[in-house]
């Protein structure tokens, strides 16, 4: 049931021109960014690396900054915000959610179905990003393990952001508001530790731990640790749980 709901929702997402526009724009932006990084390596770093006989190479100076870039995260956040607008909030605004409320469906099924559809779309968005570095393969030796680990990190980040999106989508019947809530929570999760350094002049261990970037960076560096995986899974599951609770409350009390 969950898979069928997800498949139908995914097809609906793909039938919207907005989704295709987002796919195109994000791919163009990220592609351009990748090109700039490669160009910068070729013109500036390559000679330097050879000169000082450094062990660093394309993997450290192109692929890592590429996956660590704010641009990628911003695009991912944008895609998640789009999902927040349509997954639940839009259905509540138009009243079509009543069909689901009066149907023999559990709210968990509903949330998971919509979640998987949203996640599938984000995977569609980030798949070309992960595959793009492979274009360097003919010219250099790529660390495929690290590429895979970066891809996993991006996927986990997407999984978390879609969970945030569906939670935000359940909070309001105004789609734009759902998008803004998603961006707000998303930014908070990504950069909550950034302010601590400025304000307290030292790294706050708790805030650092809460920040999603703390757990994303090791994956980009090629370190796959269970603690980091657990962070994403638990936090994502938490948001999904609250989304289910919220829908249950809406169904019965609104």
């Amino acid at each position, binding site marked *: *049931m969950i898979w*069928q*709901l997800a498949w*139908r929702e995914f097809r*609906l997402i793909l*039938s*919207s021109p907005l989704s295709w526009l987002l796919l195109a724009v994000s791919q163009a932006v990220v592609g351009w960014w990748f090109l700039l990084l490669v160009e910068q390596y070729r013109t500036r770093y390559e000679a330097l690396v050879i000169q000082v006989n450094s062990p660093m190479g394309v993997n450290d100076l192109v692929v890592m900054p590429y996956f660590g870039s704010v641009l990628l995260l911003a695009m991912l956040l944008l895609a998640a915000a789009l999902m927040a607008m349509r997954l639940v909030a839009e259905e509540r605004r*138009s*009243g*079509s*959610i*009543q*069909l*689901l*409320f*009066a*149907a*023999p*469906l*559990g709210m968990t099924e509903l949330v998971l179905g919509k979640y998987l559809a949203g996640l599938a779309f984000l995977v569609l968005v980030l798949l070309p990003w992960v595959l793009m570095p492979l274009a360097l393969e003919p010219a250099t030796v790529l660390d495929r393990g690290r590429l895979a680990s970066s891809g996993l990190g991006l996927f986990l980040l997407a999984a978390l952001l879609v969970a945030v999106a569906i939670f935000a989508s359940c909070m309001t019947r105004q789609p734009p508001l759902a998008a803004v809530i998603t961006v707000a929570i998303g930014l908070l999760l990504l950069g909550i530790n950034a302010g601590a350094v400025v304000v307290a002049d030292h790294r706050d261990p708790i805030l650092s731990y809460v920040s999603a970037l703390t757990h994303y960076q090791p994956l980009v560096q090629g370190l796959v640790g269970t603690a980091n995986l657990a962070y994403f899974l638990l936090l994502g599951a938490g948001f999904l749980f609250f989304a289910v609770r919220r829908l249950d409350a809406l*169904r*019965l*009390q*609104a």
Partner: protein
Amino acid sequence: MSDQALLDAAGVGRRYGQRQAVEAVNLRVRRGEIHGLLGLNGAGKSTTLRMLCGTLAPTRGQIRLAGLDLLEHPIEAKRQLGYLPEIPPLHPDTCVDEYLRYATLVRRLPRGQRSAAVDRALQLCDLGAVRRRLIRNLSKGFQQRVGIAQAIVHQPALIILDEPTAGLDPRQVSAIRDLIRALRQEHAVLFSSHILPEVQSLCDRVTILHQGRQVYQGKPQGDANRNRVRVRFRSPPPLNALAGIPGVEHVESLEEQGVLLSLSLDTAMDVLLRQSLDNGWGLEELRPERPTLEQIFLDLTTGEELA
């Protein structure tokens, strides 16, 4: 248990903060029955229907659908239910076909039965010609019909329609009326409306809500009372002359409308006719009194508002 009601709501009420939207509604709908829910705007019709469909929790009372408690076994109970909310829950960007298929999916119809169910609903609601059109591009009447198709596609035992004819032109209204009549063969139908003739012509039973309270439940015509007749004369006799006729129990003057007589003997009518002829009262009209739904409705809803 053959007489078991499909829908049995006992003392169902809903409070929004301080405001009591609906209090203590009792409803029983049986198989093959069309039940009308009447009321002015804001009387609590939609709130009641939403509670019966499990999309709104009652603050009091119990709802049983096909013998299953709606709050304890929501999933099993809702399998028996088809619901058209006030605003049809359509997906404007999909075509009719695909939308109805989705409706069979969320109603948990087995995969093999879905196509046949969609075809049947399309045929019942006369939507065959527009099955490939986008719902957004359909007229209001067609959209309403898609909404009804969505509610019956899985052949539920009970169909609940919230103002199914609102905003439609007279021809569409009569088409939907025919559809509801056709549905009663296999389903029980509960629908709300504030159009009295519609309810009177369709329903087996009627419940009237007024200011959240259930003020009437029964047949849409009221009971025809053979012992109450209304008579009108060209030159009305004094009331005590009529009261003197053997078998006349009570006389009530209706001013211009004539006189309302309560009879206890069948022969009273004969005596009345003879006396009218003999005394030249000039009988103009004589008919049994039967309260129409409109009378019942107005009696119940206007008096309350003054109180």
